[in-house]
């Protein structure tokens, strides 16, 4: 196999041959080469993470009609490195009375839960960390570890605001995991497998976004809530709870939370691209070489990340009770209804032509979304008139 088709395997085989030539046990050589591969991927991810800080600051600046960092280096590109150096040389204060082990473990687990997701993300048709049979559920498992790390951070800081912020954040995160799980089932149904690579390969005819636009939208909303970004960032709202669960963290520990959140956002951009927008597929370009597939995937992930940033810097923050009611009363039933409709249509129209299948799926999504909005509108109108009716009667009673 040539270097252009499968560079990693060629490099790994060469390295393994070298190591066994030096007398190392073959399985140990294999594990060592795998370890080096994993190290390479994660170091590249951390470098991308550093540049995400720059992207974030420049984008928010442009949204707010200003320039953003432009002093250090051309276009301010050295700025994130200065930020890293600043965070490293800051003092690491631990609040008195904090639970030391849990306090230090929380940022580590938070970052780990983001990095481990990349084990199942396919970067190219042959470049995949682990070809897990249950790749889709693995995402939720990593999210569970992230949720746990937030509770640990909030509780161990010995600070009322951190405690409240941590619990609110976890309540929101677990609430929005249900629509996310349900929307993860839709690509599973359409592709017939939980394997991420299979889901990408099944999007050959058309991307799943065209088959299930409402699914993609609900997944995006649930993902933004999972990330804890605006408009769902009540728990770390800068004007409300100071900084939520990471009040007492300084220096690199705070850096882990912050950079972890940005990397998590880009990871979810990538997952959204894989599940609904074809991953590394682009009209056959990805078959030429992985060196073409990886930039395609990264471009889609960054577009997803840009959309998440766009939502953050455009919409207002929602109150916690509004968030939770929105999820449990609107989004969860809607996502289950969409799942049922998708499953039903998949079975009924399986043998029809692909054109009929695609159009009917798309139309059913729009219909379900429209009906849901109408129901929500009528219910909210009823509640609003109920409230206004009360105030009117009060006025009549007084005057």
């Amino acid at each position, binding site marked *: 196999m040539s270097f252009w088709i499968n560079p990693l395997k060629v490099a790994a085989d060469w390295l393994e041959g070298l190591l066994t030539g030096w007398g190392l046990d073959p399985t140990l050589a294999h594990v060592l080469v795998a370890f080096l591969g994993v190290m390479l991927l*994660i170091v590249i991810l951390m470098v991308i993470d550093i540049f995400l800080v720059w992207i974030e600051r420049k984008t928010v600046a442009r949204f707010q009609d200003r320039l953003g960092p432009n002093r250090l280096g051309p276009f301010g590109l050295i700025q994130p490195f200065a930020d890293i150096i600043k965070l490293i040389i800051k003092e690491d204060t631990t609040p008195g009375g904090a639970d030391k082990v849990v306090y230090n473990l929380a940022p580590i687990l938070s970052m*780990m839960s983001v990095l481990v997701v990349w084990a199942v993300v396919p970067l190219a048709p042959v470049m995949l960390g682990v070809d897990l049979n249950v790749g889709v*559920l693995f995402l939720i498992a990593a999210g569970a570890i992230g949720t746990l790390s937030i509770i640990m951070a909030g509780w161990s800081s010995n600070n009322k605001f951190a405690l409240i912020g941590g619990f609110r954040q976890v309540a929101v995160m677990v609430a929005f995991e249900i629509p996310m799980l349900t929307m993860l089932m839709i690509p599973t149904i359409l592709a017939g497998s939980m394997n991420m690579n299979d889901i990408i390969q099944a999007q050959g005819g058309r991307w799943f976004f065209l088959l299930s636009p409402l699914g993609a939208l609900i997944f995006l909303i649930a993902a933004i809530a999972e990330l804890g970004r605006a408009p769902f960032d009540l728990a770390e709202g800068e004007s409300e709870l100071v900084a939520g669960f990471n009040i007492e963290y300084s220096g690199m520990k705070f850096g882990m939370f912050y950079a972890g959140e940005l990397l998590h956002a880009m990871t979810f951009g990538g997952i959204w691209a894989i599940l609904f927008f074809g991953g590394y597929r682009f009209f056959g370009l990805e078959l030429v070489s992985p060196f073409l597939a990886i930039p395609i995937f990264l471009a889609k992930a960054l577009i997803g990340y840009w959309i998440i940033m766009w939502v953050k810097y455009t919409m207002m923050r929602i109150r916690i009770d509004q968030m939770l009611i929105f999820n449990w009363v609107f989004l969860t*039933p809607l996502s289950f209804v969409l799942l049922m409709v998708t499953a039903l249509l998949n079975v009924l129209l399986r043998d029809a032509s692909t054109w009929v299948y695609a159009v009917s799926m798309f139309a059913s999504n729009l219909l379900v979304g429209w009906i849901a909005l109408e129901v929500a509108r009528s219910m909210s109108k009823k509640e609003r008139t109920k409230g206004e009716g009360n105030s009117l009667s009060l006025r009549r009673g007084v005057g």
Partner: protein
Amino acid sequence: MNEWLYVALFVFVGLLIPVGAIAAGFIFGPKKANPIKKSTYECGIEPVGEVWVQFKAQYYIFALVFLVFDVEAVFLFPWAVKLGQLGLYAVVEGILFITILIVGLVYTWRKGMLEWV
């Protein structure tokens, strides 16, 4: 070789990187602790009272409803994987499963348990 070994490698390296970064911070940062720095933050004033807030019962209800739906989703995943090859019978079974749980959710909502009092 068991593919989960690679997952274990990812977990290991994923733990190594943050530990390395925090250790770098520990090595290079000043360590001048004093009691003022160690006190917790409470809007700039001295912390009042113990760190124990009246914990709302709502958190528990939400976590429980989430648990029920999480288990439901886990049951539905194998159903979703095989849905491409199964017939209408399987779809109806799945729809029945989901409907029973939606009825439970509606019951919880109408009883007012989903209000953030």
